[in-house]
């Protein structure tokens, strides 16, 4: 590991460890309904940030693949979708756990919950499409087209639709949940590092998976 090029991996590990520790031990404001579950914000919300970053990677590298035809770009695209999907599932699970405590039900028909679940479906369909094609180049090209086609729809799903309706999530409609005034400065000092840390870790995991995939392919070819 070279410090010059790999410093961000160390930074990611440090930030995530810091937020894991501070998340459990740090001081949080005492709020009705939320109580101590407010700590989940350090674990639940960064998952979504990291997922969106990885899905953006997927779209960008799909476009790059279409213009270059370079297999490496396709590998990055598919592994970004893989890791993004995994982070999305973690985000759904942590969110459901939190919803169980604060809203009373794991699935509360909240627009953001529904949208996130459908957003996952887009990438599950992407993998089904990949699975149905045998020829490697055709698979890469057609799945890249589908992912670029579906990306704007996913953006609408995650960022525009929930804002058009009332949501139990903070920031939409009237609810006793969390809004920007509930998070004091001390919490922000943990929250932002957690977001950055998880994004970096997600990208790192993706990179390792790409290398693994390429080595496997090389071995299979020989």
């Amino acid at each position, binding site marked *: 590991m070279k410090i010059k090029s790999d410093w961000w991996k160390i930074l990611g590990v440090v930030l995530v460890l810091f937020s894991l520790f501070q998340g459990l031990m740090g001081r949080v404001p005492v709020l009705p309904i939320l109580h101590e579950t407010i700590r989940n914000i350090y674990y639940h919300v960064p998952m979504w940030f990291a997922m969106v970053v990885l899905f953006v990677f997927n779209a960008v590298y799909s476009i790059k693949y279409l213009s270059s035809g370079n297999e490496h770009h396709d590998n990055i695209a598919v592994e970004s979708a893989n890791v993004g999907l995994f982070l999305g599932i973690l985000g759904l699970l942590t969110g459901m756990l939190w919803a169980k405590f604060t809203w009373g039900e794991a699935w509360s028909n909240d627009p953001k919950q529904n949208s996130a679940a459908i957003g996952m479906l887009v990438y599950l369909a992407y993998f089904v*499409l990949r699975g149905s094609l045998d020829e490697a180049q055709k698979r890469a090209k057609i799945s890249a087209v589908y992912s670029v*086609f*579906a990306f704007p729809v996913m953006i609408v799903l995650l960022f525009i639709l929930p804002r058009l309706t009332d949501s139990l999530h903070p920031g939409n409609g009237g609810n006793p949940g969390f809004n920007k005034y509930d998070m004091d400065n001390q919490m922000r000092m943990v929250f932002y590092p957690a977001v950055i840390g998880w994004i970096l870790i997600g990208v790192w995991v993706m990179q390792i998976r790409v290398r693994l995939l390429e080595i496997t392919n090389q071995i299979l070819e020989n």
Partner: protein
Amino acid sequence: MAFIKETTTLIRKEFLMEWRSKYAFNGILIYVFATVFICYLSFKKIDPITWNALFWIILLFTSINAIAKSFMQENRSRYLYYYTIVNPAALILSKIIYNLILMSFIAFICLFFYTVVFNNPIHDFSYYLLAVALGGLSFSSMFTMVSAIASKANNNSTLMAILSFPVIVPLLMLLIKFAKNAMDGIDRASSANEIGVLLLINIIVFAVSLLLFPYIWRD
């Protein structure tokens, strides 16, 4: 200018092919009648919210079936001919416009038959028609590209459904909300957000389809 001429010629070709066989259109028409009638026989009477949801579900499945065919009839040798004479953007645009006309037509027939069989709870009928027309536009722009993608993956109709459901859900949610507002007859301005977002998504889908189709039309 050449582009517009190519597109209109291709649209004419689509209509001519359909007119000669009438296979797709008649098939879809029977599909609509059968589905609506089965729904009537099993529901008999329904409340307005279910009325609206059921209508859009029928329309969704009808349009998936109608549009899935749009690339399946194109065989390999005809594609070879296309490569030599047409612009890929003109080809996809002609398919989208043809599907749009077909879908709007079928959607209005579906609405007519549906309101004849079930009683009609719509308060603002002209606005509901606008919702149906926007629905036809959204379904055709979305599903044409998806059917092009699915046709490259061995023409699998299950794949068509799998690929199109996640991308159509946001549009369908907006459409159902807009249509419900029209059905309840509440103030027209309250649906402005839905209409704006729907038009925006459709423009994006149009642009993305025109940009992406050239990458998949050749194997």
